[in-house]
């Protein structure tokens, strides 16, 4: 296990930049999530660390080794692919042991280590099957065991849960967190799913167009988004962004935008008058779409409140829950 450091790493594809001068430090044993929308370069970051792509500029270090020019097989990293990339003609055991066999490890040792890794990943009972005979969740475990078996310095996981259905995804997410706690390895986890990022990550790196937007704990990302993009990308529904505070009864400085999450809007007796335009019930809560002072907003309120389309309500919020962003650059501004 080792720390990972990216220093000024850039990657162009035929002149089109995918990653721009990225600096990233991952601590030894940390689980860092790289979060961003599709096409933001997050998978490229992972492939650069794996050595599957060669950086156009910058350096990559694992521990104190400079691996920038090293081939993937010599970096001692392992990867779980989105599609799992299991070899269809090999059994689960042969898939897990593949890396050991091509490195000419002794047969007995291969068998022992495969069994060990399979136990950790929870797939010891599947070893004789082929990928075609396994369910999505089972394949995922085999892929995980294959990554574990070599005891690499760094684990790279590329959207490993995106091919699972919702229930299995939640369950596997929890297991992954337990697994990380048990193995204590350095892990880089790429996802576009903010829930996964918030639940799994010790820290989150938010990426957009190949540029790092913010690096921080889930708490920091949530409470103090560094800019408009992070604020809108993390959280569902997306944070309300308003050209002025008028619609929520706040006074913001000129030229600043006000951001406020849907759950921090209160509908009651006081505040700005608003009209309900749409109600989306989501179980115990409801998303109420409103028009106030010429802007559209979404509030999340208890379902019992029973708002209907066309109702007139009053809207309020508090300054401590509101975020300020520069109207031009989108950067976070302090309240003064």
């Amino acid at each position, binding site marked *: 296990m080792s720390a990972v450091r990216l220093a000024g790493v850039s990657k162009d594809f035929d002149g089109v930049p995918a990653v721009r001068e990225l600096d990233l430090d991952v601590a030894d044993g940390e689980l860092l999530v790289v979060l961003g929308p599709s096409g933001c370069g997050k998978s490229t970051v992972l492939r650069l660390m794996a050595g*599957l792509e060669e950086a156009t500029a910058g350096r990559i270090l694992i521990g104190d080794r400079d691996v920038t020019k090293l081939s*993937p097989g010599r970096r001692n990293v392992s*990867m779980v692919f989105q599609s799992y*990339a299991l*070899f*269809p003609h090999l059994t689960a055991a042969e898939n897990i042991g593949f890396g050991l066999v*091509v*490195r000419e490890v002794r047969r007995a040792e291969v068998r022992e280590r495969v069994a060990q890794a399979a136990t950790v990943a929870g797939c010891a009972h599947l070893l004789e099957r082929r990928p075609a005979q396994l369910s999505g969740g089972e394949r995922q475990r085999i892929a995980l065991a294959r990554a574990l078996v070599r005891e690499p310095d760094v684990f790279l996981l590329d959207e490993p849960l995106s091919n699972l259905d919702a229930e299995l995804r939640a369950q596997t997410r929890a297991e992954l967190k337990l697994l990380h706690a048990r193995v204590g390895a350095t892990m880089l986890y790429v996802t576009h799913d903010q829930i996964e990022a918030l639940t799994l990550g010790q820290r989150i790196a938010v990426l957009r167009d190949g540029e790092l937007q913010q690096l921080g704990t889930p708490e920091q990302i949530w409470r103090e988004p560094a800019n408009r993009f992070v604020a809108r990308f993390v959280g569902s529904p997306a944070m309300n962004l308003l050209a002025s505070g008028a619609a929520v009864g706040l006074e913001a400085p000129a030229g600043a935008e006000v951001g406020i999450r849907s759950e921090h809007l209160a509908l009651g007796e006081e505040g700005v008058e608003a009209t309900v335009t749409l109600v989306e019930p989501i179980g115990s809560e409801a998303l109420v779409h409103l028009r106030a002072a010429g802007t559209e907003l979404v509030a999340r309120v208890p379902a019992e409140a029973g708002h209907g389309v066309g109702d007139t309500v009053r809207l309020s919020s508090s300054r401590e829950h509101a975020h300020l962003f520069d109207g031009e650059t989108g950067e976070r501004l302090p309240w003064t």
Partner: protein
Amino acid sequence: MVRGTFWRSLGAAAVIAVVGLPIVFLIAGSLRQPGLPPPVTPELIPDPVVFGNYERAADLVGLGRAALNSFIVAALAAPLSVLVASWAGFALVLIRARARTAILAASLLALMIPLTALLVPRFALYRSLGLVNTFVPLVAPALVATSPIYVLVFYVAFRRLPPELYDACRLEAASPFQIWRRVAMPLVRPVAVAIGLLAFVLSWGNFLDPLVYLHDRDLFTLPLALRSLAQLDPTNYPLLLAGAVIATAPIVAVFLVAQRYFLHEHRGAGWLGR
């Protein structure tokens, strides 16, 4: 849809009849007593049925020896073709784009040259190397995989494998040769089998090359021996047809195995590994 199927089946029956009837006549003709006057209508079962033509054809020009020669050549050329084609096709997937483009273009160009156009210079080349009247010129085309089209077929088949499989191999420090042997080849096995059998068939039926390169009767392959049979007794059709049956029969066996791999796409994996 039902109506469509009926007409299609009728069409299929017609195709089978058009190809099948000549085969029936071939076998019927080979069982005819030589020297009989011509029949008035086409005959499906000759009267009397004689098998002596096979024996005579085999003895007259040594078809047994020729069959052995043909087998030696094809058994060398076919696996070698598969090896060369699959190596080249595999390497093409992994090398840099510019080299790949160049080699693919050269292959297409090579495909566009008729074999007869290369006859004279190739002969001059082999002659200067002292290889005329050996099997070398007959096996050597395996170096271009019998036909560059097989290299292209392998390239396409390997390209169709998911790229993450190659990535996974690279992460495990597998060398190109290990990837070829342990992952790529097992996954395109139907393609490899089909190409191997086709190369065998082509080599077995090759007439032009033996005609030009072999002078020694002991080295004659089946097509060449068959041709000398035709020159020896050009009007003895039962004899010639018996020879043709001997030259064709082994290929029928190989073909019946091969066609399952590239004509029946629903048998799991077929042509191009689909």
